[in-house]
């Protein structure tokens, strides 16, 4: 356990700068987006008042943080998309930097006097920690953005907003932070399985090189087909079908769990028996 924690800490430490840059960039872009959008609307309201002499409320809806998030969806989505892209790329780099980085770090990792599975699980946990830390940071950022909005907007024109509604006003967050924890669990469960498949494919490549690329792609393709084909083929989306929807989902959950177990087993097997430096 101690070896695993040491390796995990090492992985987190190696990525910390990029993680903090991503967090900083996200905060900067989103806070600026809210601030500029709020100032823009205040200017529009003032212009309306100056041109017509009528109070802005007669033409504009009350200012709410939720609507401001809705209006700035693109700028909220840009740092989120960038973070996702960086994390996806790092899911590859977390392995390949050990082989192709400065010095043959992989040699030292694999030669450690502890179980090799610790390396595998440390890398997996590190990636998950980055993902959930970014999500947590986004959740922390929302009240900060709301506070910025409240500071700028005239108090008498503000309609109170709930953070959950503001989150849901952004299309990207509907998938990343769904209202239901059940959906969150399902979305990220599938994401974790995808990460396990990716790790197995990378280790196939590291074990068999050129042949490994083909094997890795084939394995990923097979898993993707198994993850997406059964619900469609068994008619989960139809109003009528031989199997009940709960049976189709039970089959799917069983398949997904099997894929997860096989992927972990394959990854550990390859790391222990096949991977070479």
């Amino acid at each position, binding site marked *: 356990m101690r070896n695993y*924690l040491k390796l*995990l*800490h090492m992985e*987190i*430490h190696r990525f*910390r700068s990029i*993680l903090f840059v991503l967090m900083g960039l996200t905060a900067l872009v989103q806070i600026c987006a809210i601030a500029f959008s709020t100032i823009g609307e205040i200017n529009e309201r003032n212009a309306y008042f100056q041109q017509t002499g009528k109070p802005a409320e007669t033409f504009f809806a009350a200012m*709410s943080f*939720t*609507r401001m998030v*809705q209006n700035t969806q693109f700028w909220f989505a840009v740092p989120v998309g960038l973070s996702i892209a960086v994390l996806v790329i790092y899911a590859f780099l977390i392995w390949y930097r050990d082989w192709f980085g400065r010095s043959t770090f992989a040699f030292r990792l694999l030669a450690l006097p502890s179980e090799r599975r610790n390396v595998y699980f440390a890398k997996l946990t590190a990636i998950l*920690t980055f993902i*959930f*830390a970014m*999500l*947590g*940071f986004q*959740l*922390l950022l929302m009240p900060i953005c709301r506070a910025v909005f409240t500071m700028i907007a005239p108090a008498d024109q503000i*309609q*109170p*907003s*709930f*953070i*959950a*509604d503001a*989150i*849901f*006003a952004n299309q990207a967050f509907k998938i990343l*932070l*769904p*209202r*239901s*924890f*059940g*959906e*969150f*669990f*399902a979305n990220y469960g599938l994401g974790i399985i995808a990460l396990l498949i990716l790790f197995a494919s990378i280790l196939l490549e590291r074990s068999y090189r050129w042949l490994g690329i083909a094997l890795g792609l084939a394995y990923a393709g097979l898993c993707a087909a198994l993850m997406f084909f059964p619900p469609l083929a068994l008619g989960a989306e139809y*109003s*009528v*079908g*031989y*199997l*009940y*929807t*709960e049976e189709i*989902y*039970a089959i799917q*959950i069983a398949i997904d769990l099997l894929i997860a177990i096989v992927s972990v087993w394959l990854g550990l097997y390859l790391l222990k028996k096949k991977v070479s430096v």
Partner: protein
Amino acid sequence: MKRYILSMALGVFAVGAIGTYYASGTEGDAPLYKLVTLEGDVQEAANMQLGGHYIGGVGSKALELTVAGTKYQLAPSFYEKYLQDNRFLTTQYEDMKALKQDHRNFMRGRSSIDSFYRDSDWVIYADAVLYDPSSEYDWRSELRMDVLEEATGKVAKHRIDLDESNIEWFRVNDVQRIGDEVHILAQVRQRAKLPEGGWKSLSEEFRDYVVDLGSGKLLRRDVLMSEQLKATAGTSGTSEAEPAANVIRSDLSLSIAPIQRTSQPSEYVVLQMSRSSTTGGEGVKEKTTLVRKYAVYSYRTGKLTPLPESSTDISAYSHSQSELNGDILTVMYFDNRSLAIARYNVATETLDPGELTLTAKQAGGQSIKSVTLAQDRVYALLSSEDSNKAGLADSRQITAVVLDAGSGKTLYRGEAAYEGPADKAEEFRKKLWLTNIYANRS
């Protein structure tokens, strides 16, 4: 230990932030409302559901209001989304839920609520399929009847080739057993091949296919009602209605009066036929009911008897809804100003002389926003705003009433109230828009 503080902090932060977000509730601005009783017995409103939206902040949130409180469907649980049955047939009807619980395999792949029959001895599912053996759109029809014996659990599957051609579509409306005979009431549209190619819709019919329960042999087929269709301007299914100067569409509708549970045994079925025409020009269209007829068919005697017509005053209403409850057929005619109810005894084939007419004002409002008939009760959403006023009324103007379909007596009257601080009650009632009323057919 100090050296691990970053890793620990990140982990704790991630779990804490996400956990707090979901634990604190993600429904956002979703205030709770309740139905408060203004008059009558709250038990009468137990099956009543009011549908509407909370309109606050950005967008709106659909909600359902019952005497039990408010239900938003914003964040379904993992169980609701993935682990429970989500199919309409086996989740929305109590008799279908019971059938699934008792005969899970028999219920697989079933699609039509009207195709079931159940008594203490038998469960029957009968459906019709059209197939095209020649691949020339010359449909052939086949009845498929699955019979489950409750005592043994054995299922007999019967496939009956009807040897009929020129069928455009075919739908089973009711299944009943009288002794050893199974009556499959079907709605069939006939068509004819045109000499220049293509097809023309000819007529719509109600047919009773009588099948032997044991052998699955077709014993006879009777045409109960046949109405001619006129194909005009590419709209198959339009009727031979009275032509009017500016008629842009004529429609024929054949249906049966629903019973409380479609699978329950009933000796009678009530057939409904209506013809309507839509008139008008650009922008303004008006639908007028030209003819509306009811006939009761006895599966036991094979006798089809037209029911006496209700008075012209009430049958001229633009909308109607009917329900067969035992031997009593209730027909409710309505528009947004008033409703009228005619009741028939289908066993004696008589019309109850006391036709009931009730205006929205008499019921306690100015206009009727939504109304439905279920289990001898009329459920209505009344507005204190006049029906001519454009736009939706918020909940301050809305009351829900339950009336006895026979006497018109008010059994329940209630309105939505905000479940929060009293000083905010008016503000939140203003943001609640109730638009529909439903009744559970349990």
